[in-house]
């Protein structure tokens, strides 16, 4: 089985040569860190990924969680890994020192997350969810909630979840119906049903803490009546022992992939004894939850890129070893076959994978840099980074999610028939990666968010800032003779994105919201391609600069490989915007006009 799942070389290239993570060390908040430590963090993460997580990858797929006697039995590595992440400080890594964390820069915190997800996506989800849930309590919870829950979660003893979805409220969170009834004892009585909740009950931890959205009785309808609660599966009684909190698992779903982590259906308050504890103020729950959701969305993008990375290395390894066919110019059938990587079409598939995965990772790191700068800067500069992060979050979630489905598919294709069989991990990666365009908001919903809300944030200020960011890269690239043409291609593409955006915004006024948003998913796709091209230009600048130095043979190959992949992205991917721009400018409202009856074609 393929061994390599992530590239330390690429990670270090992005961290140090493209995004200059060391520049964060000048800010007091991050001044306790050093590059030497970042390297040890990368090393240690690779070791944990390689020795602890990767060996269980296939096992967790073949023996998925089992639901019996009200609980869910998961693979034993879940407990080991949660303990490791608790004791090793990986769950609390970005929390401030005073809350028991390590105040790690987001950019660095990305590294273990990416590596763990590439080694074994299902396993990586348990600590990741716990981090996000605990940070949400840290941000908005009372002192009592913080003291009761956060230390156990940071220690990896208790699992955190985000419990939003209900049967009638998936994409449409406004329809959440779970109720919370105030009591005079400081807690609420919870009643309702949640579905698809990841990690919401399992035997790899001692307790599960749901960060749950519900409606306080009498609250207004819609999103303005949603509140956030902590609902533990077990609560402390007067003696301080953990007793059941009337959170009942009524079933687990059998999924296509990502099988190592259960998603459960929950029924709350069957015996009228489910206690929930309000976080922050009533009716502000969705706003609070967005902190967790936005972090989780970037986490999903990272998870997709991670599976894409593992699939890329597995297909690369296979393509180097599999002899099949001969060069088209070779007429002698007795000559040995060539490894398939010698075929241009196989190289094209591998390049596609690499361009998508490394482009996506770069974009995600760009977003995490905005998170860091938002953290350490003040005033206008802080706001600028916050706006950029806000604008780009749907893209950071959706581009990797959508495109890594394709890139893993191409990886599978490299293996031919073996790609389809379970001796090789590609078929599993293909199933595992398919979740990403669905959870944490479907691609369709993110398209609507990007076009319907984000590009107009503060009258388009965020969008203007984004264009300036790209222009800055273009100007820098113009300083390198080798990159001039590409800089002008990106300039042209960005102009098209800008024009399409203003054209669509005027359609909103002329033809109404429905026509305006009908192709929002395609707009998201266009936006994504331009964004990744920008990231490849940044990488090409770093590689071109490096190639001017005296380098070892390996380094020359690495940077030249980067340049080839960059050229691939511009030559094969960026050109795809032409069709999208054409479609988006044709605002005929086709999908709006057509009635569902038109799908009728006989019984």
């Amino acid at each position, binding site marked *: 089985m393929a061994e390599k799942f992530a590239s330390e070389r690429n990670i270090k290239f992005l961290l140090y040569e493209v995004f200059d993570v060391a520049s964060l060390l000048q800010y007091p908040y991050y001044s306790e860190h*050093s590059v*030497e*430590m970042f390297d*040890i963090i990368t090393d*240690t993460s690779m*070791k944990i990924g390689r020795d602890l997580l990767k060996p269980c990858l296939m096992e967790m797929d073949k023996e998925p969680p089992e639901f019996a006697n009200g609980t869910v039995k998961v693979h034993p590595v879940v407990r080991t890994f949660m303990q490791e992440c608790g004791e090793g*400080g990986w769950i609390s890594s970005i929390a401030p020192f005073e809350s028991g964390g390590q105040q*790690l820069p987001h950019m660095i915190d990305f590294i273990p997350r990416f590596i763990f997800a590439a080694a074994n996506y299902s396993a990586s989800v348990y600590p990741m969810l716990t981090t996000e849930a605990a940070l949400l309590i840290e941000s908005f919870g009372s002192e009592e909630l913080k003291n009761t829950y956060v230390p156990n979660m940071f220690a990896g003893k208790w699992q955190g979840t985000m419990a939003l979805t209900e049967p009638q409220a998936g994409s449409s969170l406004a329809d959440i119906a779970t109720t919370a009834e105030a009591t005079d004892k400081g807690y609420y009585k919870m009643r309702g049903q949640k579905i698809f909740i990841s990690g919401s009950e399992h035997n790899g931890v001692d307790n599960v803490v749901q960060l749950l959205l519900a409606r306080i009785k009498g609250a207004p309808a819609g999103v303005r009546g949603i509140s956030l609660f902590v609902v533990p599966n077990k609560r402390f009684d007067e003696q301080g022992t953990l007793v059941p909190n009337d959170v009942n698992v009524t079933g687990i779903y059998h999924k296509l992939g990502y099988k190592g982590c259960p998603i459960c259906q929950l029924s709350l308050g069957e015996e009228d004894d489910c206690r929930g504890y309000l976080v922050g103020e009533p009716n502000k729950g969705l706003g609070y939850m967005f902190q967790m959701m936005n972090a989780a969305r970037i986490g999903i993008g990272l998870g997709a890129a991670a599976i894409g990375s593992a699939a890329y290395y597995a297909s690369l390894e296979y393509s180097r070893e599999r002899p099949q066919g001969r060069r088209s110019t070779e007429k002698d059938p007795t000559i040995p076959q060539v490894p398939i990587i010698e075929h241009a079409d196989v190289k094209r598939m591998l390049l596609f994978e690499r361009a998508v995965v490394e482009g996506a990772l770069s974009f995600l790191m760009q977003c995490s840099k905005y998170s860091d700068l938002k953290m350490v800067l003040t005033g206008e500069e802080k706001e600028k980074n916050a706006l950029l992060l806000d604008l780009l979050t749907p893209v950071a979630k959706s581009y990797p999610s959508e495109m890594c489905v394709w890139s893993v598919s191409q990886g599978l294709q490299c293996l031919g028939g073996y790609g389809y069989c379970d001796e090789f991990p590609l078929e599993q990666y293909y199933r595992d990666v398919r979740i990403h365009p669905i959870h944490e908001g479907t691609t369709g919903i993110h398209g609507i968010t990007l076009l319907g809300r984000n590009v107009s944030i503060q009258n388009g200020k965020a969008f203007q800032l984004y264009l300036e960011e790209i222009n800055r890269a273009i100007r820098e690239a113009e300083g390198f003779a080798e990159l001039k043409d590409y800089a002008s291609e990106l300039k042209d593409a960005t102009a098209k994105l800008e024009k399409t955006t203003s054209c669509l915004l005027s359609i909103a006024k002329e033809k109404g919201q429905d026509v305006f948003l009908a192709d929002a998913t395609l707009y998201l796709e266009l936006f994504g391609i331009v964004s990744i091209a920008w990231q490849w230009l940044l990488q090409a600048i770093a590689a071109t600069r490096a190639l001017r130095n005296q380098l070892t*043979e390996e380094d020359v190959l690495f940077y030249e490989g980067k340049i080839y992949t960059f050229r691939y992205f511009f030559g094969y991917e960026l050109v795809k915007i032409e069709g999208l721009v054409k479609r988006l400018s044709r605002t005929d409202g086709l999908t709006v006009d057509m009635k569902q009856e038109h799908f009728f074609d006989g019984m």
Partner: protein
Amino acid sequence: MNLIACVKQVPDTEAQIKVKADGSGIEEAGIKWVMNPYDEFGVEEALRLKEKAGGTVTVVSVGPARAMETIRTALAMGAEKGVHITDLDNADAFATASALAAAIKEIPFDLVFCGQRAIDDDSAQVGSILAELLGVPQVTIVTKLEVADNKIKAVKPIEGAQLLIEASMPCVVTAQKGLNEPRYASLPGIMKAKKKPVDVKKAADYGISADFKANVAKMMPPPSRPPGKIIQGDDPAVKAAELVKLLREEAKVI
């Protein structure tokens, strides 16, 4: 207890090793460096003893500047301080052990751990020479260790049996796989490691010269494997007899 763990930085077991064209060593470019896996067992055992009985763990390494990352890794696992002797590139086992001995003599020590061998040069000599130079007992290839009353009881596997060996402290123990499961460095550990003291020394500080007793004259890639042989024929019994004959006469393995 004063515990010492000697660590060496070596190429990762998964690194693709290329021998330099001039036979002077390996191509170092692009190699990932790690702590010698057997040394990891030593570090882990020292940390466990410290956690049980109190004391400090000092890591000592002979190696070029890049070996500092290996020392920091041991500090991140929980060791207290380090000594790094930097200018003995390509040292033989004797010079390495001499440098280690000189450094260790300056620190009070009860127990010194080495890996049973290093996975790069496979010489398996440093621990033993070190014990001689320190004038203390040695127990090599240890898979289980107990410490009580200023004595160690160590288990060492040999062909077909195990030996339980007692030795007085101070002494040198060389660690074998099975001794323990080394821990991963923790994030707080990594944060603290940065501030832990590491003494950087030159061999000359200990009066050791780079005039080695043994030098690698040439490094050659292993000979390429001769092609396999397929025994032809229809009768399995005849083929089996032919196989036995070849194994005995040609391969000389039975």
